[in-house]
């Protein structure tokens, strides 16, 4: 297993290099000149040229890339053109918000999605199955932006029972810690702040989980149906085991293999930043921030963020593969490699 993990990590290097080259070229070739944005409406042509020189934008593009990747390898992603802050600091200050939202959303999506999928499969062609199918269809086809606005209008605009935006009352925000407000407030025993943070995350997490929930429901249903038709399941039933025990203990575990992949990939997407959800709910994560930086041609931030997102995808894919081995004892990466 260790050898397999090491091999996967080595394979990630060309993937990350490829991603960095592509995003570097896209930003340099298709993006607008950042000088007017950075220097503002009073900038002269001479000042803009001096700024481009100072920031290496007049160097040959290969040299610019080499400088960027050398810095990245040393953990230095440069400074934001626009705010002068270190890119790593800018991303790290926003990353906990993205992680917290993604984790809560994926937990909701996985729990509800798997439950709905199992019920749907074990009650195939029943009204419950039909309802689950309709829910999944709605979840896949409804744009998150629109769903977010509907949730805000209903729960904040009409019923006034939930906040429409933000992460927490700023005066209750925990200082230091992990940056995950739910966890930090819980660990510090500040239940007022925890309740406030929880009330803020309900709507964005619901909106964000809807698509993943629908995908997980459909995948669980089809995987369960396939597993329920396996010989060993029939044998288990023939032995007189209770239906619930057969469904959960015998069928669900095997059916979870492809579902685990889907959950992992969905989590990867959510950690990459949920731009629309973050915009609608004013959630201070990296998704919306990166889009803002693309519009401002803030090259260092965009390059750093895309690299970070690529690393997240690679790591999550690796974790999913390792979980495979745990869920299915027949899989042993070590033996395959040996």
């Amino acid at each position: 297993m260790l050898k397999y993990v090491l091999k996967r990590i080595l394979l990630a290097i060309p993937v990350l290099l490829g991603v960095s080259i592509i995003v570097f070229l896209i930003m340099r070739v298709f993006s607008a000149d950042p000088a007017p944005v950075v220097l503002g409406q009073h900038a002269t042509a001479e000042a803009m040229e001096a700024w481009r020189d100072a920031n290496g934008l007049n160097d040959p593009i290969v040299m610019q890339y080499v400088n960027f990747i050398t810095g990245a390898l040393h953990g230095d992603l440069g400074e934001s053109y626009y705010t002068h802050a270190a890119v790593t600091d800018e991303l790290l200050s926003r990353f906990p918000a993205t992680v917290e939202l993604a984790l809560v959303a994926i937990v909701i999506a996985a729990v509800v999605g798997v439950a709905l999928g199992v019920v749907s499969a074990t009650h195939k062609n029943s009204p419950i199955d039909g309802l689950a199918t309709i829910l999944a269809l709605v979840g896949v086809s409804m744009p998150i932006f629109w769903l977010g606005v509907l949730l805000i209008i209903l729960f904040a605009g009409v019923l006034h029972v939930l906040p429409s935006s933000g992460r927490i009352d700023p005066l209750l925000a925990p200082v230091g810690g992990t940056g995950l407000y739910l966890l930090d407030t819980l660990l510090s025993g500040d239940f007022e702040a925890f309740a406030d943070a929880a009330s803020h995350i309900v709507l964005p997490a619901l909106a964000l989980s809807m698509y993943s929930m629908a995908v997980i429901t459909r995948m669980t249903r089809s995987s369960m149906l396939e597993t329920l038709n396996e010989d060993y399941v029939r044998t288990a039933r023939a032995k007189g085991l209770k239906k619930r025990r057969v469904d959960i203990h015998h069928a669900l575990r095997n059916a979870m293999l492809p579902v685990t992949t889907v959950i992992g990939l969905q989590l990867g997407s959510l950690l990459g930043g949920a731009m629309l959800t973050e915009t609608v709910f004013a959630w201070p994560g990296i998704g919306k921030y990166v889009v803002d930086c693309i519009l401002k041609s803030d090259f260092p931030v965009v390059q750093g963020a895309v690299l970070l997102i690529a690393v997240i995808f690679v790591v999550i894919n690796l974790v999913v593969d390792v979980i495979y081995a745990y869920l299915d004892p027949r899989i042993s990466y070590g033996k395959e490699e040996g």
Partner: protein
Amino acid sequence: MTMADISRRRFVQAMGAVSATSVFALVGCNSQRASEADGGEGDASESGIADTITFAQGADPRGLDPAYVDDGESAKIMCNIYDTLLAYDTETCDIVPGLAELPDVSDDGLTYTFKLHEGVKFHDGTDCNAEAVKKNIDRQLEPNRTEDMPYASFVFGSEASGSGVASVEAVDDTTLVITLRAASTPFIKNMAMALAAPVVAPSAYENGANSIENPIGSGPYKFVSWSKGENVVLEANEDYWNADHMPQTKNVIFRFIAENSSRVTALTNGEVDIIDGIDASVVPTITDAGYELFDEDGMNINYMAFRNDSGAFTDVEARRAFCQAVNVEEMVQSLYGEYAGVATSVMPLWMAPYDEDIKQTAYDPEAAKQTFADLGITSCTMLAYTNPRPYNSIGGQALAEAIQGYLREVGVEMEIVSYDWTTYQTKVETDAFDCCLYGWVGDNGDPDNFMNLLADENVSMNVGRYRSEEYNALIQQGLATEEGDARNDIYKQCEQMVADEMPWMVISHSKNLAGYSPKVQGFFYHPTGVVHMEGVTKTA
């Protein structure tokens, strides 16, 4: 223990965790809503004034050191943290004393002597004296100035232009002498601006300190924290030196909510008390919910520039025909409703030199049609931006299409080439075009700040490349003339030249719009685009 057992247990644990979160969430909702039902702020002071006011704006500040930023979102926060040598009057651009009394100006207009208030301290307890002010200006003068100080050359001038600050001298703790390279009447207004001019404590930027994220000023509010993408928290400076402007509310929070409609919902849901950056489309939602609307004339101009050096409109008769073809009044009312005024001058109508007798070219489509036919003009190209701008809330594309419709009526097909604002700023400098949309938000309330655009050598400022020695001479004369009727006459002559020669087709002046809770008192959106929060209160 089997693997199946572990899976089931974890599944049950996960379900339990989600249930617990949901319960806490509901408790949170209920407690928050209960608090609001009890009268809004749970932290109200005994005086009946709420302890906290929350202002929601569209974006994070770029930074909180006035030397390094150029955006309104930063200015709104910074004007509450810092003081300036001089200040604008509460509701106008008239200059009043700030950290210093109004200066003594030498007869040649080159030497300004400021007398600072004694005993003023920065928020960290260091002295806010003449030496601190000198350091703050010196770091923005050449050769200390860096390219990323966007307003340094505007406020303090440059050697190349032969204008601005030549030297600064701290004579003693309370006496500061600033010497200019050339007489400049707008200089005194620059000293009140929210960008570049505010006085930052040297301890905030010396010895590697990061004044952009940890500002230290001497203003009515002290910086507490900045959660990127979320909020900036300020608290009242109980030791503020200016008794007439003591902060009335304990905490001021600036929250950042990008989406226009989300900002409005946050207001009507009681999450925030004041919002800005709104457009006319959300006004009914605000007023129907019983909230107040602030709408006062802004300090801006929305215009279309003709390319004066090449293309279809180098001839003044062609420009006149274009202006005759477009019914500006009808177009402005149709596109912006009551939230923008028809422009009859470059300067906003409320600024001192405005002269209602100066008229722009009247709508006359028949005359336009005849002139275009005579000149053989049947097509033209317009560059436009796509985004909404502070002076054009509907965005450039919609405005360009409206103009395109009027031109079609007189037999001219106009091609619109549009870009996002960032790209657009480069394209107006590099691409060929016949006319383009642009605009300007005033900086300091001085007429020179508007009229100088047409004398600027810099293409990014003077996008139409208008060149007139007569006009440039008037601008230079205005710079060196003291405020008063003589100076106003100079700018009226400039306005008359614009009306006669039409380097621009002036379109509209946008209003500053903001929504606020009826519990809020003392709110005023200054024409320069900032909000001083020290006098703003909210009923608990």
